[in-house]
């Protein structure tokens, strides 16, 4: 399998003084990284710390502005991903480099540079997937597969190149806890075979379990190199963030406010061949509660958000016995009229859904508030410019309240960083003091400081008497803020259970579609698979 290392002591790969500029931005600033042979090495850092840039340079997708690479002690130049593969570097991408319209075999073949026949590729793929316990159907079309299955394709494609170094970018963020355990077994086996793994993550518990060395990055620089097992997760987090993060706190009390959001027996037909059908959704959110819906994305979360917000339209595709917001039947109301009842919505995509990328923050206020704030923003006549000052005022208020960092007074949405834009998008709705807030993935891809702030704001909103529904795939987040937890899987929603009675294992089982409450057969069934 792996070739004999030329000199056993030399590190497998070294990056020396890597600097990468994007315009004026220093994405990497004299970064050093050393990965030993047969080591699982963690690359830690917040979003925007420069981890992805460094990894793309190792894989040849980007060229460094300055600095050099060494491979087993010898100088290395990686001009392209195919050169990286030839050298023995394999990569599993965070957002997967897969093609929905093509089959699994086609997808794997595209990762090969030599002209291997498709049937040979399929044969080797079957071999590798059996060997590592990563089952795959080569003739399946990728668009029909779950996120976990897609990751398997990426891993098999990477392993088929027989790499010495396997780079994984945030691999567990899309997996159930049980799937993650199986991935770890594969990684340990790779290590035992003498290969090295560069493991990018911000999940510190996981890193301490897996890795024997860690390089921590912040703002494009390396701030620490350590053995993660010697530090507590809190210590690692502080080094990543460069300071302590405020704890998210929640007052312990039994709330029993009135029901603000209620859906009974809600069904929604799939609008496109790529969307999920919602079946028999039952859901209740009371004032003062934070109800969280856990689940791997792509299991109908977007569709549920669209159905609850009214964005999906009021066509016949959605049917339900009851859909009420604040004691009003809203089944036939559109999103604007649901907002007028005091509901507010924050979708998953910050750019191009929650905001128009090339519009200023002040204009983007109008996007979600032109109907609900008619009195102040548009009045009876649908003329708006006269209220521009009002829009700027709201935008400023939101930015101040949420501590949104921006370059100019009123920049376009696209120019903000992910965390700052997310703070703006959440703040725009909080500024209305809504009775109901439905938010999809509130802190996805957001830096830890911003995430903590947003989570605290959601808790505060509920404690002030609003109903909050959070759809999230981040279990840490859910356990931090939720009072009740339900799990979404394949368009179905489990019953919401008080957070105290939920465990990660049970959520994991519910995520993969088995009934966590039953235990018994379902549990052993999943384990056996």
């Amino acid at each position: 399998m792996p070739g004999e290392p030329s000199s056993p002591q030399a590190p497998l790969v070294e990056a020396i003084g890597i600097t990468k500029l994007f315009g004026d931005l220093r994405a990497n600033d004299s970064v050093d990284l050393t990965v030993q042979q047969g080591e699982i090495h963690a690359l830690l850092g917040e979003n925007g710390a420069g981890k992805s840039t460094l990894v793309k340079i190792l894989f040849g997708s980007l060229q460094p502005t300055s600095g050099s690479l060494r491979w087993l002690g010898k100088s290395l130049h990686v001009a392209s991903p195919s050169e990286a593969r030839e050298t023995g570097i394999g990569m599993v991408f965070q957002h997967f480099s897969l093609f929905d319209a093509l089959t699994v075999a086609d997808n794997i073949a595209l990762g090969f540079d030599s002209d291997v026949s498709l049937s040979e590729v399929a044969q080797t793929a079957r071999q590798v997937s059996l060997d590592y316990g990563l089952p795959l159907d080569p003739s399946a079309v990728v668009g029909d597969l779950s996120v976990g299955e897609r990751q398997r394709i990426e891993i098999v494609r990477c392993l088929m190149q027989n790499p010495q170094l396997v780079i994984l970018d945030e691999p567990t963020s899309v997996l159930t806890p049980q799937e993650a355990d199986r991935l770890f077994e594969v990684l340990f086996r790779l290590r035992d075979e003498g290969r090295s793994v560069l493991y990018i993550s911000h999940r510190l518990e996981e890193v301490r379990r897996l890795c024997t060395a860690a390089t921590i990055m912040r703002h494009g620089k390396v701030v620490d190199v350590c053995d993660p097992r010697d530090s507590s997760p809190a210590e690692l987090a502080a080094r990543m963030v460069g300071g302590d993060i405020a704890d998210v706190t929640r007052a312990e009390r039994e709330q029993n406010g009135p029901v603000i959001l209620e859906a009974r027996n809600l069904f929604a037909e799939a609008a496109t061949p790529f969307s999920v059908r919602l079946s028999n959704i039952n859901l209740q959110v009371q004032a003062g509660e934070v109800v969280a819906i856990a689940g791997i994305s792509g299991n109908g979360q977007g569709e549920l958000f669209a159905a609850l917000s009214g964005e999906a339209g009021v066509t016949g595709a959605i049917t339900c016995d009851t859909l009420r917001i604040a004691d009003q039947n809203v089944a036939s109301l559109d999103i604007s009229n649901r907002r007028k009842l005091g509901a507010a919505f924050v979708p998953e995509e910050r750019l191009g859904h929650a905001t128009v990328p090339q519009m200023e923050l002040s204009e983007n206020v109008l996007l979600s508030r032109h109907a609900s704030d008619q009195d102040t923003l548009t009045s009876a006549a649908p003329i708006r410019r006269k209220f521009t000052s009002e829009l700027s005022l709201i935008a400023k208020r939101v930015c101040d309240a949420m501590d949104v960092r921006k370059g100019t007074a009123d920049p376009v949405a696209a120019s903000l960083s992910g965390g700052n834009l997310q703070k703006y998008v959440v703040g725009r709705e909080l500024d209305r003091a809504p009775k109901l807030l439905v938010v999809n993935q509130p802190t996805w891809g957001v830096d830890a400081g911003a995430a903590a702030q947003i989570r605290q704001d959601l808790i505060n909103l509920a404690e002030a008497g609003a109903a909050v529904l959070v759809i999230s795939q981040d279990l840490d987040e859910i356990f931090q803020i939720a009072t009740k937890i339900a799990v979404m899987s394949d368009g179905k929603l489990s019953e919401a259970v008080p957070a105290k009675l939920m465990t990660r294992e049970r959520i994991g089982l519910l995520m993969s579609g088995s009934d966590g409450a039953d235990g018994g057969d379902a549990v052993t069934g999943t384990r056996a698979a």
Partner: protein
Amino acid sequence: MKVQLIKRSQPSNWLALTSPFMALVLTMVAGAIMFALLGKNPATGLYTYFIQPLLDPWSRDQILVKATPLILIAIGLAICFRSGNWNIGAEGQYLIGGMVGATIPVLFNTWDTALVLPLMLIMGIAGGALYGAIPGLLKAKFNTNEILTSLMLVYVAQQFVDWLVRGPWRDPDGFGFPGTKSFNESAVLPALFATWDAHYGAVLAVVAAVIAWFVLSKTLKGFEISVLGQSERAGRFAGFSPAAMTVFAFCVSGGLAGLAGIAEVSGSVEKLDDKLSLGYGFSAIIVAFLGRLNPLGIIAAGIVLALTYIGGEAAQISMGLSDRAARVFQGLLLFFVLACDTLIHYRIQITGGSASAARKEGAG
């Protein structure tokens, strides 16, 4: 040599204002090269094309005549394009507008009151709007590609109008030439000044531009148009309906093209004949982009395009240059407008040789 684009964090306002002028200058440079290749004096060529028509009163009058339909159609197209709908069939909507408006003087030629003209204009707008609504509705209902359907309807409209003016509507005393009887006085859109060819359609064009500018920049409807044009999902999130917008945009743009058609028929030709389709509907696409989809900018852009028509005629007479050169100019102009628009969002870095040179430049 390698051309690289580097995204600006904020679009450049300065370049947004100047890019149409840069495009115009580049077009003139390209035109000069073309003249030289054809063995003509580039300076004389450019002068004949772009300066001379502005100095001569008759030419100025003709520029206004040509600019009127171009501006009217381009305003509608700008609204449509801004909303993310590609109406390429304005030529057909223009023809049908002219035809529907002409039904009154053709079928009721004895009716001779002050009502005739306003009614004709309204019918022209309605005809164009309804014909424009076809691709709009097909897109909204069935998700049909509006570019192709609107364009196909141009050919259908051309054939239909051709049939009318050669068949049922032909003037029996017209010596067999295709075309209706000349309209009565009451059905003619009056000239701006006694001896001019330019008619009140020019005033309508300016009024339409001002209204469109107001709607686009000052009203919620204008906001809705820009939001849906830039991001359909954000539009749905705002509570706007993309399907309703598609139908609306096609109706408005068809209606303005229809108005251009009936204004041309009633103000310029004073009858319906087989020469109504002069390609204004396509040239207006260039006008819309040259005006940066801004109705006030479109007024200026319409005049520039009209200038190329008139200049082209002048160059044909005085320099023996093909009248098709005008179309070449228009095509080049659109290319340069689009290329210069890239500068608003990107910085362009041109590096000699290999990628390593690019890296050095980045470091420096």
